[in-house]
């Protein structure tokens, strides 16, 4: 199992993501300017401030050379996980529905939140015990998930909402408490909380490992050893 973690100028969570992935398999950094995914089994688009988040969050990063390959990889059914800024990039790239808007408080929010696993039968959540809550930190200024109302209804009906902020834990006014959402095919997933920051007991929670373990299990099922 080989994870690839994209590094843009301005990424800042790619090393934590690499360390998290390295607990479960090999993990290599994919430089934004290269059109080479190095044979990885899954791609992580990490958090940070890609290209300075100039213009809009994620707006410039989607045109990075590596993103063309990531889009191809996704179209072919490859697993792509976007975390925070990575989620914003995938929305801008049209690989995920919706958009992330500024927090109503206009403030940077950094806190541990409780998440409810809405579906534990997907490539990104299958290692989560059903009904279990995940304790994972959020840290962002632009994290309010938005989609027009008809689109929200469609996403709910299609089962694309995988994670929700638990009651009382929605930090940013995300519509329908959506914390993480997948594409229609189910192989691209984005979330605002940072599972890569919750993989070591030293920092209080290891719940984030479930997300990476899910990906590993999914890849293991698909590719016989």
């Amino acid at each position: 199992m080989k994870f690839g973690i994209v590094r843009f100028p301005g990424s800042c969570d790619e090393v934590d993501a690499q360390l998290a992935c390295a607990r479960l398999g090999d993990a290599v950094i994919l430089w934004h300017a290269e059109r080479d995914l190095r044979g990885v089994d899954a791609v992580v688009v990490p958090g940070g401030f890609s290209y300075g988040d100039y213009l809009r969050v994620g707006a410039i990063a989607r045109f990075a050379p590596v993103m063309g390959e990531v889009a191809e990889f996704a179209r072919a059914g490859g697993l792509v996980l976007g975390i925070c800024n990575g989620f914003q990039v995938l929305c801008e790239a049209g690989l995920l529905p919706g958009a992330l808007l500024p927090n109503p408080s206009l403030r940077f929010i950094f806190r541990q939140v409780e998440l409810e696993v809405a579906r534990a039968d997907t490539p990104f959540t299958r290692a989560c015990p059903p009904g279990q809550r995940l304790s994972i930190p959020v840290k962002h200024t632009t994290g309010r998930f938005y989609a027009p109302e008809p689109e929200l209804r469609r996403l709910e009906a299609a089962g694309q909402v995988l994670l929700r902020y638990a009651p009382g834990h929605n930090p940013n006014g995300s519509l329908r408490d959506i914390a993480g959402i997948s594409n229609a095919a189910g192989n691209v997933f984005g979330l605002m909380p940072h599972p890569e920051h919750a993989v070591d007991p030293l920092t209080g929670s290891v719940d984030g490992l479930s997300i990476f373990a899910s990906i590993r299990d999914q890849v293991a099922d698909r590719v016989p050893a």
Partner: protein
Amino acid sequence: MRARVLVKPKAGILDPQGQAVERALPALGFDGVHNVHVGRLIDLDVEDPGRLPEMCERLLTNPLIEDYEIVEVAGQPQGSAA
């Protein structure tokens, strides 16, 4: 052509920046101000203005959350491209 693209949040989308400004104005004695929205403007010299809408749709705005308006600015383009 010297063009100006005006970008603002789509109607109905929560605009916390606009709200913050709207709340701040009365504190300075500017009463009677409503419906404040904060957007951004992008000035650019373009050789083919016909391509501006496509630029707006693909990069300058996110059509899901933003509306835009293209305005021609009087005067000559600046710099070497003129």
